């Protein structure tokens, strides 16, 4: 803390917010240690095998798998673009790092969505919870990404686990928000129709609301993945490995070349993941039906 005199010194008591936070984190580390160890083990067992699989497989196979996905979801043009982009990355020295970043992004996004979607459903069904959740989500989104890394280090030391967990927290808000939005946007008359025919709230959620909210929820999934990708690079600061390491190292050493190569790899990953997840949403029957209805009116 700096000791420069603030203009209000002496007028207002100084709030020891920083101290409180530190104390809370210390308390948590000491009492919740075993729980954190458990979480760390879970994350490790998720990331490790995926990381090994992606880095172990020949680059050609990975490129072809993505091209095939692209062909299925978006058509041959995108498949070709994905193949060229990933081929370019494979031709650069950081393929392994790219793959471990991909593994981290996938695991972090999956965990994030696992928390965000049910939370979004809960918040959509409960006005009070929604009011409570809003400022918390705002805080989570506006807090500088680095700040998440500090408690993560405290709880989990350095390495992949704090990186992934900080990513999970950072990327959750759009998942919650868009799930809530999607559910709230479902036509009131459709929900009432369910009620009028005697459906339970649970059935209305599963058979009416969720199918119709799915396109919006998929936009949330897309956003979560994009945020996770951006955070995973920052997580390089805590030694999470992958492209984050490459970029941090380039930054420290002012190596323009490797910095650019790492950056390009991130961009290619981002574009491919973004376009692929974006088109999954459009393939649901509800999404197609709603689009067709909108075009008519």
């Amino acid at each position, binding site marked *: 803390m700096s000791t420069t005199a603030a203009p209000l010194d002496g007028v207002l008591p100084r709030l020891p917010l920083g101290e409180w936070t530190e104390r809370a984190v210390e308390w948590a580390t000491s009492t919740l240690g075993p729980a954190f160890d458990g979480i760390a083990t879970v994350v490790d067992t998720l990331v490790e095998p995926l990381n090994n699989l992606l880095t172990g497989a020949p680059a050609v196979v990975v490129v072809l798998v993505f091209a095939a996905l692209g062909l299925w979801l978006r058509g041959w043009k995108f498949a070709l673009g994905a193949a060229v982009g990933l081929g370019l990355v494979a031709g650069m020295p950081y393929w392994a790092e790219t793959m471990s970043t991909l593994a981290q992004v996938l695991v972090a996004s999956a965990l994030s969505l696992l928390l965000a979607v049910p939370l979004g459903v809960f918040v959509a069904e409960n006005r009070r919870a929604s009011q409570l959740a809003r400022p918390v989500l705002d805080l989570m989104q506006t807090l500088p990404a680095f700040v998440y890394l500090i408690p993560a280090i405290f709880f989990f030391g350095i390495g992949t686990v704090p990186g992934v967990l900080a990513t999970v927290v950072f990327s959750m808000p759009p998942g919650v928000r868009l799930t809530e939005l999607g559910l709230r946007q479902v*036509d009131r*008359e*459709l929900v*009432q*129709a*369910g*009620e*009028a*025919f*005697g*459906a*339970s709230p649970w*059935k209305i959620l599963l*058979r*009416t609301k969720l*199918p*119709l909210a799915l396109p919006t929820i998929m936009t949330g999934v897309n956003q979560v993945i994009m945020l996770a990708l951006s955070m995973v690079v920052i997580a390089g600061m805590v030694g999470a490995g992958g492209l984050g390491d490459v970029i941090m190292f380039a930054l420290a050493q002012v190596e323009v070349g490797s910095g650019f190569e790492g950056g390009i790899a991130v961009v290619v990953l981002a574009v491919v993941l973004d376009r692929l997840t974006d088109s999954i949403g459009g393939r*649901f*029957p*509800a999404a*197609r*039906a*709603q689009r*067709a*209805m909108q075009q*008519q009116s």
Partner: protein
Amino acid sequence: MYLPAVFAGKAIVSAIAVKSLYKIFGSRPAEAVRRLKGGAPRAEALAGLPATTAAVIDASLEVRPGEIFVVMGLSGSGKSTLIRMLNGLLRPTSGSVEVDGVDLGTLKPAALRRLRREKISMVFQHFALLPHRTVLENAGYALEIAGLPRAERRERAMEAIRMVGLDGWEDKLPQDLSGGMRQRVGLARALAAGTDILLMDEAFSALDPLIRREIQDQLLELQAELGKTIVFITHDLNEAMRLGDRIAVMRDGRIVQIGTAEEILTDPANDYVERFVADVDRTRILTASSVMEKPHSVVDVNAGPRVAARALRETQTSVVYVTGGQQRFLGTVTEDEVSRALRAGRQSLDGHVRTDHVRTVRHDTAVADLFGECAESVHPVAVLDDRDRLAGVIPRITLLSALGSLTGETDRPDDDAPPSLVDEAGPDLPAAPSAMDLGVAGAPMADLARVTTEVRGEPVAPTREKEETA
């Protein structure tokens, strides 16, 4: 359509009974109800209660089994709120709703859901179909919720689809259907549920006029067959008059009048209703019984030619209407026939009664449908009640003057003041000569026919709904 007196072998109980129902939205509902109970107008009573809306105020009504009960009012009159309290989608602030004798207020959520599954289904203004499900799946939605096995669901949904005339479309998605067809799916969904009561919330308001007309007809046809109890919400007075066995008119949250279409037209409860009904096409609503006149020369077939002759002389007409056993209408006897019978010394008019000189209509025939009959009939048209008794007659000139007062500015002459229906219109009381035999000759009837088609505003050729994908 409306089956009176006995329903399913039981004496009438109301299908839905609503007693002094209130629905207040806002922070202090109880206080609002207390103030409104004094009967003050909505704005006055709620002054000083910020952000409080009284959607329904002191509404009481009974819906009889098998009738179409229409709730009519402009937007903001509370009709949609009212209908949503009938199946418990909204909870009343005060008052009670009973469905088949069960007070909804006493039901727990699960029991309320069961009641909706078993007794009441609903049709929505904007159809409320699931866009990602086929017509068949949408039609079977209620059955799916009720947990029926797939095969049975399919069978019953298909039956409902056939009823609304959408067979062949069952595998299409709602997006492939026109608006009218979509609402028929909505109707099929409600019919497939198999409930006795149907709530229809502005069900046809989103449709084009021609298609609306067609689906109204279809509803009436289905209703004649199925005899459901229907509560129909609309802001369209013509629709209300066309469909409703009885109509409740709502204004500012209150029900201002409940009655048949005719009662509301001929005897509006207040200025508001009167202004509201001012531009209705009355020829479609009013029936023969409301324009008919008392028949002046009626004799029993056994009364003999002398009585007939006296009737002719006293009323200065050239024809008498003849009734038989139980006052059933038999036909007419002209002057010539009467004198022939007198000469032959007959004791009865039997054998002299002609049926080809006069057309008969039922007392509930719409005025719009009388013109053709009047044109064809040599003598004034005979109006018969449900037991084929002669209830009245309609001379052409009466119809013409009624037409003038129904559609034009001129008032109806005082002497054919509120016509009462059938019963005591017995064959008695010869009175002053009427206009009935001033015999507007055949020629002007062509003009009349032309006038009437214009008045009725009918499209020349009925247009069928387009059955193609939009």
